[in-house]
């Protein structure tokens, strides 16, 4: 079915819901504006940068992600638990939702298209090293790969390793180095 057909279907549905008083166009606009403008990977980047410069924060983040990101004003209305998993020399973490598209919205916004595609959802569990190689991640053979399957209750975010040569950088400059893909685990910084 074409975009036009979908657009008419969505418009018809919205008009019925508004007529019945269950929805306002403003409420829909508000959700769209939130994810277009206010919630996105820039939030996660700030969390990562803080963890890189503040060892106590990092400890709290790994112990209870939901509570730690609330310190920076993120999360709130979402009830899902956020678990942050740390990349080390020995372990590389990668996140997927095999069933649908669960994703840590509060810190990363909405997932990219490939995250929702059947190929990524099924293959990254079966052959993570190969998928990561295809996505440009080269890991030493000794590094173990751990795949985390998101669910309705638990959302995962990767804490990437701090790149070498960034010792002199401030928190904001560090945040600018953090990419969305590194927080999903399909990029190494």
């Amino acid at each position, binding site marked *: 079915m074409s975009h036009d057909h*979908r657009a008419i279907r969505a418009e018809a549905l919205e008009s019925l*819901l508004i007529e019945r008083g269950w929805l306002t166009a403003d*409420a829909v606009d508000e*959700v769209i504006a939130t994810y277009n403008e206010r919630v996105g990977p*820039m939030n996660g980047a700030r969390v990562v940068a803080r963890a890189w410069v503040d060892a106590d924060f990092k400890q709290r983040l790994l112990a209870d992600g939901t509570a730690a990101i609330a310190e920076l004003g993120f999360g709130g209305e979402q009830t899902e638990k956020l678990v942050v998993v740390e990349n080390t020399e020995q372990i590389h973490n990668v996140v997927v939702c095999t069933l649908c598209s669960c994703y840590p919205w509060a810190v990363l*916004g909405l997932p990219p298209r490939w995250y929702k595609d*059947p190929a990524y959802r099924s293959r990254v569990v079966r052959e993570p090293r190969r998928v990561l190689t295809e996505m440009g991640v080269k890991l030493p053979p000794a590094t173990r790969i751990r795949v985390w399957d998101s669910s309705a209750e638990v959302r995962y975010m990767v804490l990437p390793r701090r790149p070498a040569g960034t010792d002199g950088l401030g928190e904001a400059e560090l945040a600018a180095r953090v990419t969305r893909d590194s927080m999903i685990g399909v990029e190494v910084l």
Partner: protein
Amino acid sequence: MELSGVLAPPMANGEAVFEAPWQGRVFGMARALAEAGLYSWDDFRRCLIDEIARWDREPEGTYAYYDHFLRALERVLAEQGLVAPAELGARVEAFAARPHGHDHPAA
């Protein structure tokens, strides 16, 4: 703070959150209705998983995530007795029959 690169809002860093406006409307409706308590997000998610699983079992055509998302929304609304499929079908037909250049009903 200067917002550029990955720190910029999603729309400004070169990657659109939604590929077409209707996808944003559908996502916005699904979230707003859950926030208003008309169903729980878990109810919606169950329908979404089911719609996606159906495609995974028997892939047909190109995978289009928001097609599944829209069908899941229709299903949860039907299950909760909020919008019957026949009502939606009638409204879709009425909208589709509008003459060109009259995309929106007169106020």
